Protein backbone atom coordinates (compact mmCIF):
# COMPACT_ATOMS: atom_id res chain seq x y z
CA UNK A 1 0.00 0.00 0.00
CA UNK A 2 2.77 2.39 0.95
CA UNK A 3 4.66 1.20 -2.13
CA UNK A 4 1.73 2.15 -4.37
CA UNK A 5 1.42 5.56 -2.77
CA UNK A 6 5.16 6.02 -3.14
CA UNK A 7 5.00 5.20 -6.86
CA UNK A 8 2.20 7.68 -7.43
CA UNK A 9 3.94 10.31 -5.34
CA UNK A 10 7.05 10.03 -7.52
CA UNK A 11 4.98 10.50 -10.67
CA UNK A 12 3.29 13.64 -9.31
CA UNK A 13 6.30 15.08 -7.58
CA UNK A 14 8.21 15.81 -10.75
CA UNK A 15 5.25 17.09 -12.75
CA UNK A 16 5.40 20.84 -12.65
CA UNK A 17 1.83 21.49 -13.76
CA UNK A 18 0.44 19.13 -11.12
CA UNK A 19 2.52 20.78 -8.44
CA UNK A 20 1.32 24.24 -9.42
CA UNK A 21 -2.33 23.18 -9.48
CA UNK A 22 -2.11 21.40 -6.15
CA UNK A 23 -0.39 24.37 -4.58
CA UNK A 24 -2.94 26.80 -6.03
CA UNK A 25 -5.72 24.67 -4.65
CA UNK A 26 -4.44 24.76 -1.09
CA UNK A 27 -3.54 28.42 -1.25
CA UNK A 28 -7.04 29.24 -2.47
CA UNK A 29 -8.55 27.37 0.47
CA UNK A 30 -6.61 29.58 2.86
CA UNK A 31 -7.89 32.57 0.89
CA UNK A 32 -11.33 31.89 2.30
CA UNK A 33 -9.95 33.91 5.16
CA UNK A 34 -9.75 36.87 2.82
CA UNK A 35 -13.55 37.01 2.68
CA UNK A 36 -13.27 38.33 6.20
CA UNK A 37 -11.62 41.49 4.98
CA UNK A 38 -14.25 42.30 2.36
CA UNK A 39 -16.18 45.37 3.38
CA UNK A 40 -18.24 47.84 1.43
CA UNK A 41 -20.29 50.82 2.46
CA UNK A 42 -24.08 50.75 2.19
CA UNK A 43 -25.24 54.29 2.75
CA UNK A 44 -23.28 55.43 5.74
CA UNK A 45 -22.97 52.00 7.34
CA UNK A 46 -19.80 50.07 6.72
CA UNK A 47 -20.93 46.59 5.75
CA UNK A 48 -18.43 43.94 6.74
CA UNK A 49 -19.01 40.40 5.55
CA UNK A 50 -17.22 38.94 8.53
CA UNK A 51 -19.85 40.56 10.76
CA UNK A 52 -22.70 38.80 9.02
CA UNK A 53 -22.09 35.69 10.99
CA UNK A 54 -20.51 33.58 8.29
CA UNK A 55 -17.59 32.79 10.56
CA UNK A 56 -19.74 31.90 13.52
CA UNK A 57 -19.46 28.39 14.87
CA UNK A 58 -21.04 26.09 13.91
CA UNK A 59 -22.21 27.78 10.69
CA UNK A 60 -18.62 28.20 9.55
CA UNK A 61 -18.30 24.42 9.06
CA UNK A 62 -21.10 24.53 6.57
CA UNK A 63 -20.02 27.75 4.89
CA UNK A 64 -16.34 26.85 4.49
CA UNK A 65 -16.91 23.31 3.30
CA UNK A 66 -19.26 24.67 0.65
CA UNK A 67 -16.81 27.33 -0.53
CA UNK A 68 -13.83 24.97 -0.40
CA UNK A 69 -15.73 22.33 -2.36
CA UNK A 70 -16.07 24.66 -5.33
CA UNK A 71 -12.29 24.69 -5.56
CA UNK A 72 -12.18 20.94 -6.11
CA UNK A 73 -12.02 21.56 -9.85
CA UNK A 74 -8.32 22.35 -9.52
CA UNK A 75 -7.60 18.92 -8.12
CA UNK A 76 -10.00 17.41 -10.63
CA UNK A 77 -7.71 18.62 -13.41
CA UNK A 78 -4.73 17.03 -11.69
CA UNK A 79 -6.55 13.75 -11.19
CA UNK A 80 -7.97 13.52 -14.69
CA UNK A 81 -4.59 14.25 -16.21
CA UNK A 82 -2.64 11.94 -13.94
CA UNK A 83 -4.90 9.19 -15.24
CA UNK A 84 -5.14 10.10 -18.91
CA UNK A 85 -1.44 10.99 -19.20
CA UNK A 86 -0.69 7.38 -18.39
CA UNK A 87 -2.49 6.59 -21.60
CA UNK A 88 -1.04 9.34 -23.76
CA UNK A 89 2.53 8.70 -22.56
CA UNK A 90 1.84 4.97 -22.83
CA UNK A 91 3.41 4.63 -19.42
CA UNK A 92 0.43 2.59 -18.27
CA UNK A 93 1.60 -0.14 -20.63
CA UNK A 94 5.14 0.13 -19.34
CA UNK A 95 3.98 0.08 -15.70
CA UNK A 96 2.13 -3.16 -16.31
CA UNK A 97 5.09 -4.69 -18.14
CA UNK A 98 7.35 -3.67 -15.27
CA UNK A 99 5.24 -5.76 -12.95
CA UNK A 100 2.42 -3.60 -11.64
CA UNK A 101 -0.90 -5.45 -11.81
CA UNK A 102 -3.97 -3.70 -13.16
CA UNK A 103 -5.52 -3.90 -9.71
CA UNK A 104 -2.48 -2.28 -8.12
CA UNK A 105 -2.53 0.42 -10.77
CA UNK A 106 -6.13 1.43 -10.01
CA UNK A 107 -5.48 1.07 -6.30
CA UNK A 108 -2.44 3.36 -6.46
CA UNK A 109 -4.58 6.03 -8.15
CA UNK A 110 -7.45 5.62 -5.73
CA UNK A 111 -5.21 5.75 -2.69
CA UNK A 112 -3.76 9.00 -4.04
CA UNK A 113 -7.27 10.36 -4.47
CA UNK A 114 -8.04 9.39 -0.88
CA UNK A 115 -4.91 11.16 0.30
CA UNK A 116 -5.94 14.29 -1.61
CA UNK A 117 -9.34 14.19 0.08
CA UNK A 118 -7.95 13.51 3.53
CA UNK A 119 -5.38 16.29 3.29
CA UNK A 120 -7.98 18.72 1.92
CA UNK A 121 -10.34 17.85 4.74
CA UNK A 122 -7.72 18.29 7.46
CA UNK A 123 -6.60 21.52 5.84
CA UNK A 124 -10.14 22.83 5.66
CA UNK A 125 -10.72 21.84 9.27
CA UNK A 126 -7.67 23.71 10.48
CA UNK A 127 -8.34 26.82 8.38
CA UNK A 128 -11.95 26.96 9.52
CA UNK A 129 -11.00 26.41 13.12
CA UNK A 130 -8.54 29.29 13.04
CA UNK A 131 -10.97 31.58 11.22
CA UNK A 132 -13.77 30.67 13.59
CA UNK A 133 -11.68 31.21 16.67
CA UNK A 134 -10.77 34.68 15.43
CA UNK A 135 -14.19 35.85 14.24
CA UNK A 136 -16.89 33.70 15.81
CA UNK A 137 -19.29 35.28 18.29
CA UNK A 138 -19.64 31.99 20.14
CA UNK A 139 -16.56 30.21 21.38
CA UNK A 140 -17.99 27.59 23.70
CA UNK A 141 -16.37 24.22 23.21
CA UNK A 142 -19.66 22.42 22.58
CA UNK A 143 -20.69 24.92 19.92
CA UNK A 144 -17.33 24.85 18.15
CA UNK A 145 -17.51 21.11 17.72
CA UNK A 146 -21.13 20.83 16.71
CA UNK A 147 -22.23 20.36 13.12
CA UNK A 148 -18.94 18.74 12.27
CA UNK A 149 -20.82 16.39 9.93
CA UNK A 150 -20.26 19.05 7.24
CA UNK A 151 -16.57 18.24 7.35
CA UNK A 152 -17.34 14.55 6.99
CA UNK A 153 -19.70 15.32 4.12
CA UNK A 154 -17.01 17.42 2.50
CA UNK A 155 -14.61 14.48 2.65
CA UNK A 156 -17.13 12.03 1.18
CA UNK A 157 -18.08 14.52 -1.48
CA UNK A 158 -14.47 15.11 -2.55
CA UNK A 159 -13.64 11.41 -2.64
CA UNK A 160 -16.72 10.69 -4.71
CA UNK A 161 -16.02 13.49 -7.13
CA UNK A 162 -12.38 12.50 -7.53
CA UNK A 163 -13.31 8.87 -8.08
CA UNK A 164 -15.63 10.09 -10.83
CA UNK A 165 -12.70 12.04 -12.35
CA UNK A 166 -10.51 8.93 -12.20
CA UNK A 167 -13.13 6.95 -14.02
CA UNK A 168 -13.53 9.62 -16.69
CA UNK A 169 -9.76 9.78 -17.14
CA UNK A 170 -9.68 6.04 -17.84
CA UNK A 171 -12.82 6.07 -19.95
CA UNK A 172 -11.89 8.99 -22.21
CA UNK A 173 -8.07 8.68 -22.09
CA UNK A 174 -7.55 12.37 -22.94
CA UNK A 175 -7.53 14.90 -20.14
CA UNK A 176 -9.17 17.75 -22.03
CA UNK A 177 -11.93 15.53 -23.37
CA UNK A 178 -12.44 13.95 -19.97
CA UNK A 179 -12.99 17.36 -18.39
CA UNK A 180 -15.31 18.23 -21.26
CA UNK A 181 -17.17 15.02 -20.63
CA UNK A 182 -17.51 15.99 -16.96
CA UNK A 183 -19.10 19.25 -18.03
CA UNK A 184 -21.44 17.51 -20.46
CA UNK A 185 -22.43 15.07 -17.74
CA UNK A 186 -23.32 17.97 -15.49
CA UNK A 187 -25.46 19.55 -18.25
CA UNK A 188 -27.21 16.23 -18.85
CA UNK A 189 -28.04 15.91 -15.15
CA UNK A 190 -29.32 19.46 -15.08
CA UNK A 191 -31.50 19.01 -18.15
CA UNK A 192 -32.80 15.72 -16.84
CA UNK A 193 -33.75 17.42 -13.60
CA UNK A 194 -35.47 20.24 -15.44
CA UNK A 195 -37.48 17.84 -17.59
CA UNK A 196 -38.50 15.75 -14.59
CA UNK A 197 -39.32 18.73 -12.43
CA UNK A 198 -41.18 20.95 -14.88
CA UNK A 199 -42.65 18.45 -17.33
CA UNK A 200 -43.13 14.93 -16.09
CA UNK A 201 -43.66 15.35 -12.37
CA UNK A 202 -44.81 18.96 -12.38
CA UNK A 203 -45.85 20.30 -9.01
CA UNK A 204 -44.50 17.39 -6.96
CA UNK A 205 -41.11 16.66 -5.41
CA UNK A 206 -40.72 13.29 -7.13
CA UNK A 207 -38.12 14.83 -9.44
CA UNK A 208 -35.92 15.80 -6.48
CA UNK A 209 -36.30 12.31 -5.08
CA UNK A 210 -35.06 10.81 -8.35
CA UNK A 211 -32.17 13.11 -9.15
CA UNK A 212 -30.64 12.77 -5.71
CA UNK A 213 -29.39 9.40 -6.92
CA UNK A 214 -27.45 10.84 -9.86
CA UNK A 215 -23.71 11.06 -9.20
CA UNK A 216 -23.07 14.80 -9.46
CA UNK A 217 -26.41 15.75 -7.91
CA UNK A 218 -25.85 13.39 -4.98
CA UNK A 219 -22.45 14.97 -4.39
CA UNK A 220 -23.73 18.53 -4.50
CA UNK A 221 -26.64 17.55 -2.23
CA UNK A 222 -24.22 16.66 0.52
CA UNK A 223 -23.22 20.23 1.21
CA UNK A 224 -26.00 22.56 0.09
CA UNK A 225 -25.50 26.23 -0.54
CA UNK A 226 -25.26 28.02 2.81
CA UNK A 227 -26.08 31.60 1.73
CA UNK A 228 -29.80 31.46 2.28
CA UNK A 229 -29.07 30.49 5.85
CA UNK A 230 -27.44 33.84 6.56
CA UNK A 231 -29.33 36.11 8.93
CA UNK A 232 -29.33 39.02 6.52
CA UNK A 233 -30.78 36.94 3.71
CA UNK A 234 -33.30 35.28 6.00
CA UNK A 235 -34.61 38.55 7.35
CA UNK A 236 -34.76 40.06 3.88
CA UNK A 237 -36.79 37.09 2.72
CA UNK A 238 -39.07 37.38 5.73
CA UNK A 239 -39.79 40.97 4.91
CA UNK A 240 -40.72 39.97 1.41
CA UNK A 241 -42.99 37.39 2.92
CA UNK A 242 -41.37 34.41 1.32
CA UNK A 243 -39.43 32.65 4.04
CA UNK A 244 -37.46 29.66 2.80
CA UNK A 245 -37.91 26.30 4.22
CA UNK A 246 -34.89 24.37 3.23
CA UNK A 247 -33.32 21.30 4.71
CA UNK A 248 -29.61 22.00 5.11
CA UNK A 249 -28.78 19.02 7.24
CA UNK A 250 -26.94 15.98 6.01
CA UNK A 251 -28.71 12.67 6.01
CA UNK A 252 -27.04 9.30 6.31
CA UNK A 253 -28.60 8.07 3.07
CA UNK A 254 -27.11 10.98 1.14
CA UNK A 255 -23.68 9.97 2.34
CA UNK A 256 -24.44 6.38 1.46
CA UNK A 257 -25.44 7.28 -2.10
CA UNK A 258 -22.14 9.03 -2.69
CA UNK A 259 -20.15 6.18 -1.14
CA UNK A 260 -21.95 3.73 -3.42
CA UNK A 261 -21.04 5.87 -6.44
CA UNK A 262 -17.41 6.02 -5.29
CA UNK A 263 -17.24 2.24 -5.06
CA UNK A 264 -18.91 1.89 -8.44
CA UNK A 265 -16.57 4.34 -10.16
CA UNK A 266 -13.49 2.60 -8.80
CA UNK A 267 -14.90 -0.76 -9.81
CA UNK A 268 -15.85 0.48 -13.29
CA UNK A 269 -12.35 1.89 -13.73
CA UNK A 270 -10.86 -1.47 -12.86
CA UNK A 271 -13.29 -3.41 -15.06
CA UNK A 272 -12.60 -1.08 -17.97
CA UNK A 273 -8.84 -1.38 -17.60
CA UNK A 274 -9.06 -5.14 -17.25
CA UNK A 275 -11.11 -5.50 -20.39
CA UNK A 276 -8.96 -3.26 -22.56
CA UNK A 277 -6.01 -4.30 -24.67
CA UNK A 278 -3.28 -1.73 -24.41
Amino acid sequence: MLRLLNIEFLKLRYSRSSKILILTYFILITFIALIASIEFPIGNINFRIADQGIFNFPFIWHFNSYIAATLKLFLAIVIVSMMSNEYSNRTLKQNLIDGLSKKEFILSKFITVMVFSIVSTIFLFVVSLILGLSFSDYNEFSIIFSDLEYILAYFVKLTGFFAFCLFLGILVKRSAFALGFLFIWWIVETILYAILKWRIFKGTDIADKIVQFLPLESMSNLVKEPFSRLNAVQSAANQLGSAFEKDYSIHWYQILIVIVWTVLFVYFSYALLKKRDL
Partner: protein
Amino acid sequence: MKTILSINQLTKVYGPLKAVDNLSFTIEKGNVYGILGPNGSGKSTTLGMVLNVVNKTSGDFKWFDGAESTHEALKKVGAIIEHPNFYPYMTAAQNLELVCKIKGVPSNKVEEKLEIVGLLDRKSSKFKTFSLGMKQRLAIASALLNDPEILILDEPTNGLDPQGIHQIREIIRKIASDGTTILLASHLLDEVEKVCSHVVIIRKGVKLYSGPVDGINASHGFFELEAENTELLQQLLNEHPSIGKVSLKNNLVTAIIEEPMSASDINRYLFEKGLSLSYLIKRKESLEEQFLQLTNQTTA
Protein backbone atom coordinates in the same frame (compact mmCIF):
# COMPACT_ATOMS: atom_id res chain seq x y z
CA MET B 1 17.30 -27.05 -18.50
CA LYS B 2 15.22 -24.47 -16.69
CA THR B 3 12.14 -23.30 -18.52
CA ILE B 4 11.53 -19.57 -18.38
CA LEU B 5 8.39 -19.25 -20.42
CA SER B 6 6.11 -21.82 -21.96
CA ILE B 7 3.33 -20.81 -24.30
CA ASN B 8 0.60 -23.28 -25.03
CA GLN B 9 -2.00 -22.90 -27.80
CA LEU B 10 -2.12 -19.17 -27.26
CA THR B 11 -4.70 -17.42 -29.44
CA LYS B 12 -5.78 -13.81 -29.84
CA VAL B 13 -8.72 -12.77 -31.97
CA TYR B 14 -9.44 -9.14 -32.85
CA GLY B 15 -12.91 -9.14 -34.35
CA PRO B 16 -12.65 -11.11 -37.59
CA LEU B 17 -8.86 -11.19 -37.44
CA LYS B 18 -6.90 -13.99 -35.86
CA ALA B 19 -3.76 -12.16 -34.80
CA VAL B 20 -2.21 -15.12 -33.03
CA ASP B 21 -3.33 -18.62 -33.87
CA ASN B 22 -2.66 -21.53 -31.51
CA LEU B 23 0.91 -20.52 -30.89
CA SER B 24 3.07 -22.77 -28.73
CA PHE B 25 6.74 -22.59 -27.90
CA THR B 26 9.06 -22.76 -24.93
CA ILE B 27 11.90 -20.55 -23.83
CA GLU B 28 14.76 -22.22 -21.98
CA LYS B 29 17.26 -20.47 -19.79
CA GLY B 30 20.52 -19.34 -21.32
CA ASN B 31 19.56 -19.15 -25.00
CA VAL B 32 19.00 -16.15 -27.18
CA TYR B 33 15.69 -16.45 -28.96
CA GLY B 34 14.39 -14.56 -31.91
CA ILE B 35 10.76 -14.20 -32.89
CA LEU B 36 10.83 -13.54 -36.56
CA GLY B 37 7.97 -12.51 -38.75
CA PRO B 38 6.91 -9.84 -41.18
CA ASN B 39 5.17 -6.72 -39.87
CA GLY B 40 1.73 -7.56 -38.56
CA SER B 41 2.48 -11.23 -38.07
CA GLY B 42 1.47 -11.23 -34.40
CA LYS B 43 4.86 -10.85 -32.73
CA SER B 44 3.94 -7.88 -30.59
CA THR B 45 0.51 -9.29 -29.80
CA THR B 46 2.15 -12.47 -28.54
CA LEU B 47 4.55 -10.52 -26.37
CA GLY B 48 1.69 -8.28 -25.23
CA MET B 49 -0.21 -11.30 -23.99
CA VAL B 50 2.65 -12.76 -21.97
CA LEU B 51 3.46 -9.28 -20.65
CA ASN B 52 0.00 -8.73 -19.23
CA VAL B 53 -1.08 -5.86 -21.48
CA VAL B 54 -3.14 -7.74 -24.05
CA ASN B 55 -5.91 -10.08 -22.97
CA LYS B 56 -5.62 -13.54 -24.47
CA THR B 57 -8.60 -15.08 -26.24
CA SER B 58 -7.71 -18.67 -25.42
CA GLY B 59 -4.79 -20.90 -24.58
CA ASP B 60 -2.38 -20.21 -21.77
CA PHE B 61 1.17 -19.33 -20.90
CA LYS B 62 3.30 -19.94 -17.88
CA TRP B 63 6.17 -17.90 -16.50
CA PHE B 64 8.91 -19.91 -14.80
CA ASP B 65 7.25 -22.81 -12.95
CA GLY B 66 3.87 -21.12 -13.04
CA ALA B 67 3.70 -20.80 -9.27
CA GLU B 68 3.19 -17.03 -9.14
CA SER B 69 0.85 -14.58 -10.81
CA THR B 70 1.90 -12.97 -14.09
CA HIS B 71 2.55 -9.55 -12.62
CA GLU B 72 4.71 -11.02 -9.86
CA ALA B 73 6.66 -13.02 -12.45
CA LEU B 74 7.12 -9.90 -14.56
CA LYS B 75 9.16 -8.36 -11.77
CA LYS B 76 11.85 -10.89 -12.71
CA VAL B 77 11.55 -10.01 -16.38
CA GLY B 78 12.94 -7.04 -18.24
CA ALA B 79 10.95 -6.00 -21.26
CA ILE B 80 10.77 -3.18 -23.72
CA ILE B 81 8.13 -2.84 -26.37
CA GLU B 82 8.37 -1.12 -29.74
CA HIS B 83 8.36 2.42 -28.42
CA PRO B 84 10.19 3.52 -25.26
CA ASN B 85 7.57 4.72 -22.78
CA PHE B 86 8.61 6.97 -19.94
CA TYR B 87 7.36 10.06 -18.15
CA PRO B 88 8.55 12.92 -20.39
CA TYR B 89 8.84 15.46 -17.60
CA MET B 90 11.09 13.27 -15.46
CA THR B 91 14.85 12.84 -15.87
CA ALA B 92 16.47 9.56 -16.89
CA ALA B 93 17.47 8.78 -13.33
CA GLN B 94 14.03 9.69 -11.90
CA ASN B 95 12.32 7.47 -14.44
CA LEU B 96 14.57 4.55 -13.55
CA GLU B 97 13.99 5.10 -9.84
CA LEU B 98 10.28 4.87 -10.49
CA VAL B 99 10.77 1.56 -12.31
CA CYS B 100 12.79 0.32 -9.31
CA LYS B 101 9.83 1.15 -7.06
CA ILE B 102 7.46 -0.75 -9.31
CA LYS B 103 9.73 -3.76 -9.57
CA GLY B 104 10.44 -3.63 -5.87
CA VAL B 105 14.22 -3.52 -6.22
CA PRO B 106 16.57 -1.09 -4.46
CA SER B 107 17.45 1.93 -6.58
CA ASN B 108 21.22 1.65 -6.16
CA LYS B 109 21.60 0.05 -9.60
CA VAL B 110 20.34 3.06 -11.54
CA GLU B 111 23.81 4.47 -12.20
CA GLU B 112 25.32 1.11 -13.01
CA LYS B 113 22.70 0.38 -15.66
CA LEU B 114 22.90 3.86 -17.12
CA GLU B 115 26.61 3.24 -17.47
CA ILE B 116 26.01 0.02 -19.44
CA VAL B 117 23.94 1.85 -22.04
CA GLY B 118 26.23 4.88 -22.04
CA LEU B 119 23.76 7.38 -20.63
CA LEU B 120 25.38 8.12 -17.30
CA ASP B 121 26.39 11.64 -18.34
CA ARG B 122 22.78 12.38 -19.32
CA LYS B 123 21.15 11.02 -16.19
CA SER B 124 19.83 14.43 -15.11
CA SER B 125 18.35 15.31 -18.49
CA LYS B 126 14.61 15.10 -18.92
CA PHE B 127 13.36 12.18 -20.96
CA LYS B 128 11.64 14.45 -23.46
CA THR B 129 15.00 15.91 -24.50
CA PHE B 130 16.35 12.51 -25.56
CA SER B 131 16.81 11.35 -29.13
CA LEU B 132 15.07 8.12 -30.17
CA GLY B 133 18.32 6.20 -29.87
CA MET B 134 18.86 7.48 -26.34
CA LYS B 135 15.28 6.72 -25.40
CA GLN B 136 15.72 3.18 -26.63
CA ARG B 137 18.94 2.80 -24.66
CA LEU B 138 17.24 4.16 -21.57
CA ALA B 139 14.53 1.56 -22.09
CA ILE B 140 17.17 -1.17 -22.12
CA ALA B 141 18.72 0.23 -18.94
CA SER B 142 15.29 0.19 -17.35
CA ALA B 143 14.71 -3.40 -18.40
CA LEU B 144 18.02 -4.40 -16.83
CA LEU B 145 17.38 -2.76 -13.44
CA ASN B 146 16.22 -5.96 -11.77
CA ASP B 147 18.96 -8.12 -13.34
CA PRO B 148 16.22 -9.99 -15.14
CA GLU B 149 16.12 -13.72 -15.80
CA ILE B 150 14.99 -12.89 -19.29
CA LEU B 151 15.22 -9.76 -21.36
CA ILE B 152 12.44 -9.25 -23.89
CA LEU B 153 13.07 -6.81 -26.71
CA ASP B 154 10.44 -5.97 -29.26
CA GLU B 155 11.90 -4.36 -32.40
CA PRO B 156 14.65 -2.65 -30.41
CA THR B 157 16.27 -1.06 -33.45
CA ASN B 158 13.09 0.12 -35.15
CA GLY B 159 13.45 3.64 -36.48
CA LEU B 160 17.04 4.11 -35.41
CA ASP B 161 19.86 5.41 -37.58
CA PRO B 162 22.73 3.02 -38.45
CA GLN B 163 24.82 4.27 -35.55
CA GLY B 164 21.95 3.81 -33.12
CA ILE B 165 21.27 0.32 -34.49
CA HIS B 166 24.91 -0.56 -34.02
CA GLN B 167 24.93 0.72 -30.43
CA ILE B 168 21.82 -1.24 -29.52
CA ARG B 169 23.18 -4.44 -31.09
CA GLU B 170 26.46 -4.06 -29.24
CA ILE B 171 24.57 -3.69 -25.98
CA ILE B 172 22.43 -6.73 -26.72
CA ARG B 173 25.47 -8.79 -27.59
CA LYS B 174 27.17 -7.73 -24.37
CA ILE B 175 24.14 -8.69 -22.32
CA ALA B 176 23.83 -12.01 -24.13
CA SER B 177 27.48 -12.81 -23.47
CA ASP B 178 26.80 -12.41 -19.74
CA GLY B 179 24.46 -15.38 -20.01
CA THR B 180 21.16 -13.50 -19.84
CA THR B 181 18.33 -15.20 -21.70
CA ILE B 182 17.04 -12.92 -24.42
CA LEU B 183 13.88 -12.95 -26.49
CA LEU B 184 14.14 -10.66 -29.46
CA ALA B 185 11.22 -9.93 -31.72
CA SER B 186 12.13 -8.50 -35.07
CA HIS B 187 11.24 -8.38 -38.70
CA LEU B 188 14.89 -7.86 -39.55
CA LEU B 189 16.47 -11.16 -40.41
CA ASP B 190 20.07 -10.19 -40.14
CA GLU B 191 19.37 -8.83 -36.69
CA VAL B 192 18.05 -12.20 -35.57
CA GLU B 193 20.78 -14.02 -37.46
CA LYS B 194 23.52 -11.97 -35.84
CA VAL B 195 22.26 -12.26 -32.32
CA CYS B 196 20.10 -15.35 -31.84
CA SER B 197 20.78 -19.01 -31.34
CA HIS B 198 17.14 -20.09 -31.58
CA VAL B 199 14.34 -18.75 -33.65
CA VAL B 200 10.55 -18.90 -33.77
CA ILE B 201 9.16 -17.90 -37.14
CA ILE B 202 5.56 -16.79 -37.31
CA ARG B 203 3.45 -15.58 -40.15
CA LYS B 204 -0.13 -14.35 -39.83
CA GLY B 205 -0.14 -15.58 -36.26
CA VAL B 206 0.79 -19.15 -37.18
CA LYS B 207 4.04 -20.72 -36.14
CA LEU B 208 6.09 -21.89 -39.12
CA TYR B 209 9.21 -23.00 -37.37
CA SER B 210 10.76 -23.11 -33.98
CA GLY B 211 14.22 -24.40 -33.14
CA PRO B 212 17.88 -23.59 -33.57
CA VAL B 213 18.73 -20.99 -36.21
CA ASP B 214 20.87 -23.54 -38.10
CA GLY B 215 18.02 -26.00 -38.26
CA ILE B 216 15.53 -23.83 -40.13
CA ASN B 217 16.25 -25.55 -43.35
CA ALA B 218 17.76 -28.99 -43.38
CA SER B 219 19.20 -28.27 -46.81
CA HIS B 220 22.82 -28.87 -47.65
CA GLY B 221 23.17 -25.54 -49.38
CA PHE B 222 23.65 -24.85 -53.09
CA PHE B 223 26.30 -24.26 -55.73
CA GLU B 224 26.62 -21.22 -57.88
CA LEU B 225 28.48 -22.03 -61.06
CA GLU B 226 29.48 -20.39 -64.27
CA ALA B 227 31.02 -21.86 -67.42
CA GLU B 228 31.40 -20.77 -71.00
CA ASN B 229 29.00 -23.44 -72.14
CA THR B 230 26.05 -22.74 -69.94
CA GLU B 231 23.73 -25.23 -71.62
CA LEU B 232 26.15 -28.14 -71.18
CA LEU B 233 26.64 -27.11 -67.58
CA GLN B 234 22.92 -27.21 -66.90
CA GLN B 235 22.58 -30.55 -68.69
CA LEU B 236 25.42 -32.16 -66.74
CA LEU B 237 24.10 -30.85 -63.46
CA ASN B 238 20.66 -32.23 -64.18
CA GLU B 239 22.21 -35.62 -64.79
CA HIS B 240 24.00 -35.65 -61.44
CA PRO B 241 22.08 -37.79 -58.90
CA SER B 242 22.82 -35.57 -55.88
CA ILE B 243 21.73 -32.31 -57.50
CA GLY B 244 18.19 -31.16 -57.23
CA LYS B 245 16.73 -28.16 -58.91
CA VAL B 246 18.90 -26.27 -61.36
CA SER B 247 18.12 -22.73 -62.34
CA LEU B 248 19.72 -20.03 -64.45
CA LYS B 249 19.89 -16.36 -63.68
CA ASN B 250 22.16 -13.78 -65.35
CA ASN B 251 24.44 -16.51 -66.74
CA LEU B 252 24.85 -17.82 -63.20
CA VAL B 253 23.64 -21.38 -62.65
CA THR B 254 22.29 -22.25 -59.26
CA ALA B 255 22.09 -25.90 -58.26
CA ILE B 256 20.45 -27.10 -55.06
CA ILE B 257 22.36 -29.88 -53.31
CA GLU B 258 20.29 -32.79 -52.06
CA GLU B 259 22.98 -34.94 -50.53
CA PRO B 260 26.14 -33.85 -48.73
CA MET B 261 28.67 -32.90 -51.35
CA SER B 262 31.71 -30.64 -51.45
CA ALA B 263 32.67 -28.10 -54.07
CA SER B 264 35.62 -30.20 -55.19
CA ASP B 265 33.28 -33.18 -55.75
CA ILE B 266 31.21 -31.27 -58.25
CA ASN B 267 34.29 -29.70 -59.83
CA ARG B 268 35.87 -33.11 -60.38
CA TYR B 269 32.62 -34.53 -61.79
CA LEU B 270 32.22 -31.69 -64.28
CA PHE B 271 35.86 -31.73 -65.31
CA GLU B 272 35.70 -35.47 -65.95
CA LYS B 273 32.73 -34.81 -68.22
CA GLY B 274 34.86 -32.33 -70.13
CA LEU B 275 33.58 -29.03 -68.76
CA SER B 276 35.78 -26.52 -67.04
CA LEU B 277 34.23 -23.97 -64.74
CA SER B 278 35.00 -20.32 -64.67
CA TYR B 279 33.26 -19.76 -61.37
CA LEU B 280 32.23 -22.07 -58.54
CA ILE B 281 31.08 -21.39 -55.05
CA LYS B 282 29.22 -23.45 -52.47
CA ARG B 283 26.83 -21.51 -50.32
CA LYS B 284 24.27 -22.06 -47.63
CA GLU B 285 21.09 -20.08 -47.81
CA SER B 286 21.24 -17.03 -45.62
CA LEU B 287 18.52 -16.83 -43.02
CA GLU B 288 16.82 -14.37 -45.28
CA GLU B 289 16.56 -16.83 -48.14
CA GLN B 290 15.49 -19.60 -45.81
CA PHE B 291 12.95 -17.31 -44.24
CA LEU B 292 11.50 -16.31 -47.58
CA GLN B 293 11.42 -19.97 -48.57
CA LEU B 294 9.57 -20.86 -45.40
CA THR B 295 7.05 -18.08 -45.63
CA ASN B 296 6.45 -18.65 -49.31
CA GLN B 297 5.75 -22.33 -48.82
CA THR B 298 2.62 -21.49 -46.95
CA THR B 299 1.43 -18.76 -49.23
CA ALA B 300 -1.81 -20.00 -50.61
